[in-house]
């Protein structure tokens, strides 16, 4: 069994984003998804700092400090894109208009709770940004994260121990080992990395998984 690289995870997420989708890619790992969107599909990227129809990073030297994404990296605007202010941008997110948002995660629970903004450690400086708005606002919330912490502990849990970002908000989880759907009955396996069996995946996960092929 070979764990997916970060780029491979991004590729796997990108495969599930259909033509015409309005999508917000969270800062960090999810940002990589932009590099793997199929060239043949028109997909509209939203960034919470007031832009829809975001294009790729500009060539070196052509950066515009007034045109950035939510991660404060320079981006470009596609033909047909437009700008709006922060309240309009978050109305778009909170009003249920985005088809998909892709977020990073510290933990996801078996019922789709998400923890991704704060480790809860007393000396950590908290920062939440738009994560809570995306978690409750997008029609589908994809979470993209390693299956395990660096210490080898499953990030898929019965109940999040880190402070929550949103309750029962996650639709689907993409890890370096598998893709899991959050269903009313629990986490259902969509696919598994090559060379890993369902039983092995189950042993590597913190919660009971559903094998739809069983």
């Amino acid at each position: 069994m070979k764990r997916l690289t970060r780029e491979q995870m991004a590729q796997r997420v990108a495969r599930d984003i259909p033509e015409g989708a309005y999508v917000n890619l969270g800062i960090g790992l999810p940002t990589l998804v932009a590099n793997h969107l199929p060239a043949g599909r028109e997909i509209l990227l939203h960034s919470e700092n007031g832009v829809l129809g975001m294009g790729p990073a500009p060539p070196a030297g052509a950066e515009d400090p007034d045109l950035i994404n939510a991660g404060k990296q320079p981006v470009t605007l596609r033909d047909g894109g437009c700008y709006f202010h922060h309240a309009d941008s978050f109305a778009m997110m909170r009003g249920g208009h985005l088809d998909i948002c892709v977020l990073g995660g510290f933990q996801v629970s078996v019922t789709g709770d998400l923890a991704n903004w704060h480790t809860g450690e007393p000396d950590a400086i908290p920062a939440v940004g738009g994560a809570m708005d995306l978690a409750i606002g997008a029609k589908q919330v994809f979470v993209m994260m390693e299956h395990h912490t660096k210490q080898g502990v499953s990030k898929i849990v019965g109940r999040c121990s880190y402070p929550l970002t949103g309750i029962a908000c996650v639709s689907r989880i993409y890890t370096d080992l598998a893709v899991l759907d959050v269903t009313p009955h629990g986490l259902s396996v969509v696919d598994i990395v090559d060379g890993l069996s369902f039983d092995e995946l189950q042993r590597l996960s913190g919660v009971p998984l559903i094998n739809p092929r069983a």
Partner: protein
Amino acid sequence: MIDKTVASAAAAVAGIPDGATVMIGGFGTAGQPAELIDALIAQGARDLTIVNNNAGNGDTGLAALLKTGRVRRIVCSFPRQADSQVFDALYRSGALELELVPQGNLAERIRAAGAGIGAFYTPTGYGTALAEGKETRLIDGRAYVLEYPLRADYALIKARLGDRWGNLVYRKTARNFGPIMATAATCTIAQVDAVVPLGELDPEAVVTPGIFVQRVLAVGPAAQAAP
């Protein structure tokens, strides 16, 4: 390729079912999507709830729709006008239910629906007949009424220009309710004077981003000059 343009007025209003809640843009006749309303009349959906600032002028547009008898209920702020005879007769006969809403509450309730707000406290209407039976609250010494979002299945709106992604710009005070209704409906249908190539609308001046628009119908500039 995303292409939200539709080829005919009939295609634009296809699928609107009986019993639907339909927002219709316009303030009087400014911004009223006349071609889409005519198409809705031809389409035949009945038992409709209509949301508009007014309740029709003369005997065309919204007034003509009311006259078909297919509207069960209207939500508006200013039904009575010099030329609202169609509404007046239906209302007096009891054939049409009216929910009268202060204009600012109407606008804010539509915006709230589009923005995911569950409810909001507004000072407008407090202590008046239009807030009767509604929850109230004193906040920092001021009295407010609790109002809920107003959503729709469809919105029919009129803009000046659009593109295949559904981006819209409007014309003068014909803008009025169009941009907020577009955010509050599951399916927003915009009639425009013309569809322009992608990238032609100034990204700093797009008023309705395409995410809020599902269908775009070009009706030609004649519509704009019409009375």
